[in-house]
């Protein structure tokens, strides 16, 4: 039985595993990242599979940036200023991000923003 007023607290669910039904949105694919590879090559296989989804995700962040700053200046800042900080970020993560930008075609500034979003989001 579901309480029809926020916070919609349900009775404790049971028998939900193995996952199925309306709360199950799908299984998660496994990939291997080979840490013996150069950092810029490690994510290539995974990103090649997921690049369209990544492009859509990054576009959603850009739409958000444009909603916040309609002039487009924020988006320009992301694409021009963020790449300048790539070599201040710790190795090997900076190299891995460069490899992700290359493999996906997503501008480096947007890959960096996606990866530091936790700190940025606290704003």
């Amino acid at each position, binding site marked *: 039985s579901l309480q029809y007023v926020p916070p919609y607290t349900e009775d*404790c669910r049971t028998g939900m595993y193995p996952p199925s039904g309306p709360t199950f949105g799908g299984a998660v694919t496994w990939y291997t990242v080979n840490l013996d590879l150069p950092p810029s090559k490690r*994510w290539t296989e995974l*990103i090649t599979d997921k690049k369209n989804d990544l492009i859509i995700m990054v576009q959603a962040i850009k739409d958000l940036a444009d909603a916040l700053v309609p002039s487009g200046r924020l988006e320009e800042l992301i694409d021009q200023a963020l790449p300048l900080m790539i070599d201040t970020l710790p190795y090997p993560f900076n190299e891995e991000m460069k490899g992700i930008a290359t493999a996906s075609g997503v501008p480096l500034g947007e890959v960096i923003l996606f990866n530091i979003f936790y700190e940025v989001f606290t704003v």
Partner: protein
Amino acid sequence: CTSLVAEDPEGNLIHARNLDFGLFLGWDKKNHSWVIPDKLKPLVVNVDFRRNNSTVFKSTNFAGYVGMLTGMQPNSFTLTMNERFSLDGGYIGILEWILGKRDGMWMSFLTRSVLENATSYAQAQKLLSDTKLLAPAYFILGGNQTGEASIITRSRTHNLNPLELDIKQGRWYVLETNYDHWKTPLFLDDRRTPAMKCMNQTTQANISVQTVYDVLSTKPVLNKLTTYTTLMQVSKGKLESFIRVCPNPCMPW
């Protein structure tokens, strides 16, 4: 987010989490859902990080994100992180970074470094407790021995009121949402109380991966921001993840 580590009567540790993200970042009126979680779900992947042909650690990631939010070093420790809000927040850390004061760590690079390089629960706990951060965070850490689980509440510079399992005192699980464990959660966003109610109703005798998944499937612990659920069993080296959906009526957060 809701993260928990529970110990079953045999001393096995189960670490599980709902990853909730994307609050106030755009609402899709047509689908009655948040924009960002909908875009993140197709990016959810499980990754086996290998070196010299053997597993170093496993994680659930968003493709394109090189840091770690959910991971396990098989037979050693498990780690999840939840967002912590504080006025002394990430924007200050970023400002310091831009001004050249770079003695802090970006949160997700720290968790990645710990999962890749730490060799024990104790070492992971020390690194997560003592490393200066750019932004505050909760780290939820599970080990591979009875009693090894803790909630590490971090400001940018300090570890505040660490909370550990205490089986003798009846604390057989630790659970963290997005509020300091010594404070009452915001009443508009209290996912802690329903989650603890269901854990207590389950009891330690019946805790398992299956019943933990039930808890994480109960609204509002499951909500419109929930992108995935991950279940980890360190002693079996097993990590499994599932994309989540929260059918209406469902809390937006």
